[in-house]
């Protein structure tokens, strides 16, 4: 167990170190988030009331698209120099490789989101901090769902044609329920309403989604990496 966790952390640290040295993916992701936020503000001129209603949708569209740029790099970065070979032949289970990468992606995507949120507040003149901790919980849960499926699909698409296009095509439809739930909860929380019995179903669904897709990914990752 300890060995497994150590291996996960080694992989996670390696990915983070490599990314922070080049900052390619994270810069692209942040710029993209900024551009989308700007574009939406040109698209319409919202009063504060309208903004709060659409905040959930807007934020999660920004998160999802900016996140894709980071998730795509996840296994793609291993293609250079055939590093994926070295990782597969190392004596670590595929699940450790997957979790390490998923956690590294999680940190990176969360970083972009936590920068985009205050920017959103500034550009759209919205106070979003009234239900801060509950909002953070929703961001954490939604982002994990996105990261888990994004990482496993990054592994799935690493060697195929049209990799950059296939990842979002596969990932977004699968994510629709999670994004829907996250959007609903986020809109309510940004508007200042705490999570009530009404909204709880979304929260439960998000948690269920996260658990299920994490489990299925862990089971199938070895098949994806070593295959048939």
């Amino acid at each position, binding site marked *: 167990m300890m*060995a497994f966790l*150590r*291996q996960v952390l*080694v*992989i996670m640290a*390696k990915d983070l*170190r*490599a990314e922070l*040295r*080049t900052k390619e993916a994270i810069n692209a992701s942040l710029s993209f988030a900024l551009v989308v936020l700007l574009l939406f503000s040109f698209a319409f001129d919202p009063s504060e009331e309208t903004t709060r209603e659409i905040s959930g949708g807007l934020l999660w569209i920004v998160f999802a698209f900016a996140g894709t740029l980071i998730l795509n790099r996840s296994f793609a970065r291993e293609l*250079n*120099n*055939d*590093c994926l*070979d*070295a*990782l*597969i*032949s*190392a*004596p*670590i*289970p595929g699940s450790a490789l997957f979790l390490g990468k998923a956690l590294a992606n999680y940190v990176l995507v969360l970083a972009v989101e936590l920068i985009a949120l205050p920017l959103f507040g500034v550009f759209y003149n919205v106070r979003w901090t009234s239900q801060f901790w509950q909002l953070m919980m929703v961001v954490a849960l939604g982002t994990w769902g996105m990261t888990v499926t994004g990482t496993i699909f990054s592994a799935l698409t690493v060697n195929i044609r049209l990799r950059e296009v296939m990842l979002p095509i596969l990932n977004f439809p699968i994510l629709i329920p999670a994004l829907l739930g996250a959007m609903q909860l986020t809109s309510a929380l940004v508007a200042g309403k705490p999570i009530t019995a009404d909204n709880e179903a979304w929260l439960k669904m998000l948690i269920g989604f996260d658990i299920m897709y994490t489990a299925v990914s862990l089971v199938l990752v070895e098949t994806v990496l*070593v*295959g*048939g």
Partner: protein
Amino acid sequence: MTEAVGVEGVWKFYGDYPALRNITLSAAPGACLALIGRNGAGKTTLLRTIAGFSRPGKGKIAIFGNSPRDTQTRRLMGFIGHGISVYDELSALENLTLFGKLYGLAEPKKTALDWLERTGLDRVKDGLVREFSRGMRQRLAVARAFLHGPKVLLLDEPFTALDDRAIAVLQRLLREALAEGKTIVMSTHQLREALELATHVALLNRGQVAFHGERTADMLADPGWVYARYGEA
């Protein structure tokens, strides 16, 4: 005595097309098997199947009796493929320490420094790999494969595109490895360098084993001998 590398009745299919057909061969501990054959004969496919990158459609691969996918078995194996399998954005030392940790070495950093010295890279240990020359990158790749003291080394055309210094380093390390009783399976086009080290030779032809036997003086004298006798025109 358990064979170091055992390939038994292995078939590998791409869809319905058999890239490997009923391959049976083996390498005893301490042997050096040179795998030769034309391009497309299946050398890389066979090596990668032995290394556990993909599973055979039929048949069995055994490394010291166990599957190459077993975690414990993977500790005993070292693989050098066509790529150098080290990270451009990390330094030489960071790369080797990383793999040391992944292989569960007791003192990853110390072993890494040791191997950097053995491959003549200790002076550039903190340099990022992307700044290395080609020969330096290849020596680092060799260090990575040997770092964890594998008992079985699987090398896919290791001498191809190496500069003289790297060839010398690799030959020295391989001789030392053989002297230590390690097993090597190496696919190659560079017949001369490979045959000097080899104890056994296997010729692959269109996915099948056309010849498998000891390396003889004849072969050393005329590297094309096996092809002439057993290969196709």
